[in-house]
């Protein structure tokens, strides 16, 4: 079932009636990385200290590893036995503290309490464990402040300064370097900053490109919109990802505002490059009334090709769409026979238990209604 690869994410954006598609790129926290390697650590706050001894003050020269985790995080759990080994191996030099974060909020609840989880892990969690405060102090002022979204995540601290932030898988190598005295937090900090800047730049680029296109479309300034789209596609990093969507958008604008000829003159060479958005393009054509037979047949051809190239997908879906294409073209006879094939196939699939959850009585009902409609034109 590898069809996803062909469409990628594009198809989702593709559907449907252009005006309803809205792309809103949420606000980006531009100041998300206010905490960096080399910075002083924020205050340590916790709700419950579940295991070990609460830290009252930091011992000079001692390494502290704050390991951020959650009960629902498999990879965190996987890292725990080794963290226990680290805690045992370096018990004179290093203190390990597991900080449990992001457990529950108004929208989600973990399946197990941290207390029970810690008991269950037993010696596989042989280090200090504390839970975040109710207002998520640690999650916000440590993790989010450092721009860290994923867990597990380790903060290595000495003398109140963050030496390193990263995945615990890399702890051993970092501990070695830190202990050797060759560790350069400034160089590491620069690396962090660079990464954060790249990420922000990418996000800003999305806004910079998509926002004006959306505004131009709203203002019905098509010349400007198309110019902006062309420019956007030239931007390789953006075009690679969004090029298909931009072209599909352009097709809809053309069809709805510039007429069939211009839209088809655009869509044919575009679809020939196999950019995806095939079924979406066909569906848009079939929904539009008053186009030429050639255009509808072009749409039918698109669906037929898609059907052949995706043998795993239920044929009745394609056939139903094809039937709607014939109906749009006024060829109700072929529409009826194609839809009949779709219905037979769907009934068969239901009998055989094939395509469960995708082909069901709902689909038959819908097709029956379409059938009545098509037949009324015969």
């Amino acid at each position, binding site marked *: 079932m590898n069809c996803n690869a062909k469409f990628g*994410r594009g198809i*989702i954006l593709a559907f449907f*009636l252009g005006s309803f*598609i809205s792309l809103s790129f949420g606000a980006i926290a531009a100041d998300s990385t206010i905490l960096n390697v080399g910075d002083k650590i924020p205050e340590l706050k916790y709700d419950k200290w579940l295991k070990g001894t609460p830290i009252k003050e930091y011992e000079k020269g001692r390494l502290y590893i704050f390991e951020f985790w959650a009960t629902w*995080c498999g990879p965190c759990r996987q890292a725990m036995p080794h963290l226990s080994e680290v805690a045992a191996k370096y018990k004179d030099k290093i203190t390990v503290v597991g900080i449990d974060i992001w457990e529950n909020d108004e*929208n989600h609840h973990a399946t197990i309490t941290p207390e029970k989880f810690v008991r269950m892990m037993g010696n596989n969690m042989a280090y200090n464990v504390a839970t975040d405060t109710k207002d998520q102090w640690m999650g916000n002022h440590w993790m989010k402040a450092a721009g860290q979204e*994923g867990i597990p995540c380790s903060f290595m601290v000495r003398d109140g300064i963050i030496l390193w932030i990263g995945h615990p898988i890399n702890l051993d190598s970092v501990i070695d370097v830190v202990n050797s005295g060759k560790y350069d937090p400034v160089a590491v900090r620069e690396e962090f900053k660079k990464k954060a800047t790249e990420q922000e730049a990418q996000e800003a680029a999305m806004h910079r490109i998509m926002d004006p296109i959306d505004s131009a479309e709203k203002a019905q300034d098509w010349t400007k919109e198309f110019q902006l789209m062309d420019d956007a596609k030239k931007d390789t990093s953006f075009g690679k990802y969004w090029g298909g969507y931009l072209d599909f958008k352009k097709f809809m604008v053309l069809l709805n505002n510039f007429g069939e000829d211009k839209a088809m003159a655009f869509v044919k060479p575009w679809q020939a490059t196999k950019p995806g958005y095939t079924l979406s393009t066909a569906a848009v054509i079939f929904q539009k009334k008053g186009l030429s037979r050639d255009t509808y047949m072009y749409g039918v051809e698109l669906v037929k090709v898609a059907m052949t190239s995706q043998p795993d997908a239920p044929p009745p879906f394609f056939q139903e769409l094809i039937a709607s294409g014939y109906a749009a073209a006024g060829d109700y006879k072929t529409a009826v026979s194609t839809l009949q094939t779709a219905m037979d196939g769907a009934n068969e699939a239901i009998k055989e238990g094939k395509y*469960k959850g995708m082909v069901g009585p709902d689909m038959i009902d819908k097709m029956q209604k379409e059938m009545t409609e098509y037949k009324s034109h015969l």
Partner: protein
Amino acid sequence: MRHIFSVAAFLLAAVTMTHAQILKPVMWSYGAKKISATEAMVFLKATIDDGWHVYSQHVKEGGPVPTSVKFEKSPDYLPVGKTAEPKPIVRMEPTFNMKVGFYEKSVIFQQKIKLKKGQVTVQGSVNYMTCNDKQCLPPENVKFNIPIN
């Protein structure tokens, strides 16, 4: 194969992208199709980057946070029954040390809706979390607004 479904069968779909999805492993999209004059099916589709998982609505104790779907109460419509999900991949997950039901690449959750008037906008939210074999992102709540004509 499911994308066919989402594309060909939808009467209408609205896409809302929250955050800069280009950096996110999971993208949600929504759609609906009318199945009768008074009923519609709402689809919530997650498109998932390679290597990442989204979890079933049914997870045992000690597993990931299950995906959950909430619908806003409205005089215009009523969800019928539970949100349906396709059969998940169930595998012994070494990271969780237990059998976990999850989805990869994509998944569509479906909810039957009873319509009390002709045009409604179904509102609600999906809560989900995602992990790959190295890390997990915190549960996220994504709101949706799905117009049904």
